[in-house]
């Protein structure tokens, strides 16, 4: 049987509106707005655009929003706890990245 070949999209290449992010992540717009206001989800920088332009989001926002949706569902976590947990997750991921980078630089047998 010949299998269909599916094309993938880099998560970083996405450019989404708030409504599109809500649809993809399954999070209500109100919750997303709270997360954006608290800085847990970052908007895409607007180059040379007017201040009133609607907010756009990159692919990493999909990841964060999907994690938030999962935690609301699985941990029954409230908005304040969610913002705290997401910021701690971000910190853990940055530290893991640094650890991986340092390990790559260590000669074999010292990692």
């Amino acid at each position, binding site marked *: 049987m010949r299998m269909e*070949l599916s094309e993938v999209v880099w998560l970083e290449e996405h450019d989404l509106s708030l409504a599109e992010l809500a649809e993809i992540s399954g999070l209500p717009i109100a919750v997303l707005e709270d997360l954006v206001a608290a800085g847990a989800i970052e908007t895409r920088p607007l180059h040379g655009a007017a201040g009133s332009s609607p907010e756009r989001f990159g692919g990493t926002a999909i990841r964060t929003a999907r994690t938030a949706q999962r935690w609301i569902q*699985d941990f029954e976590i409230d908005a304040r706890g969610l913002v705290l947990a997401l910021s701690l997750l971000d910190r853990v991921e940055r530290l893991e990245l640094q650890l991986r980078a340092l390990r790559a630089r260590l000669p074999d047998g010292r990692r």
Partner: protein
Amino acid sequence: MKYKDYYATMGLERAASEEDIKKAYRRLARKYHPDVSKEPDAEEQFKAVAEAYQTLKDPQKRAAYDQLGAHRPGEEFQPPPDWGTRFDAGAFSAEDLDLADLFAQLHAGRGRPGASRPRAGMDYEVAVPITIEQAYQGTQVDLELNLQEYDEHGGLRRVPQSFKARIPRGASDGQRLRVPGKGGKGANGGRAGDLYLNISLRPHQWYRADGHDLYMDVPLSPWEAVLGTTIEVPTPGGPVRLRVPAGTRAGQHLRLPGRGLPHPRSDEHGSHGDLYGIVQIVVPSVVSDADRALYEQLAASASFDPRAHFV
């Protein structure tokens, strides 16, 4: 249909209170949730716990579950004859249905308002480990998934799906790719779910990746390090010759620009990360008599003192 003991999964007695169920779920979610757990089988364990909780936390679903009676886990069983009607399970066939799917569609037969509203298909995430060579060249991976979909009556069913996904060159460790519309199918005009591929790089015998840069150990003999030399080293794009300057020290990084992994969307000649060779000075474990004589001659005449700074 195979029986699952939801109470045993959550470590509860059948007479557990709603508060007991909630507490047990919180404890187990903390222990097994894949986002926080380091347990090897965390994902499977959490799925089982979440499935049990979805039914036991809802008094109506719990009553329907209790009416199925107690069986051994994994035992084939049939719900009592009037069970489907009493609990609004809708039309279902016990042969090809999972217990979780049956409870997910409970009350579907009621014809309540909104039963025919559009429902989005489920999103799925899968881990896709690839080799450094596959990340360098791009690859195709075969994926086999058991997707949950709505049938024409609004009931849930499992549908095995196999397909290939193209992983473009330039994927790096921890990167995520989205395959739009390849998750579960939606119902009543709802959008299909998406599939997310979590890329990880398999450990390699030579290379270690940091983003698109690669690191590898480059062993040198003591005389190569002192005198300098030109050596051949492997790179993902093929072997290259590397000039080692005289007086190279252990731990020094020799940089090979553009010999690391390609950046996303770069073509054959597009930008790549760098490859760093980390020098290791390796001494022979077996020394011939002739070599020993040369070392002794060197030791007697050399003025180099590696511990001069101790004085």
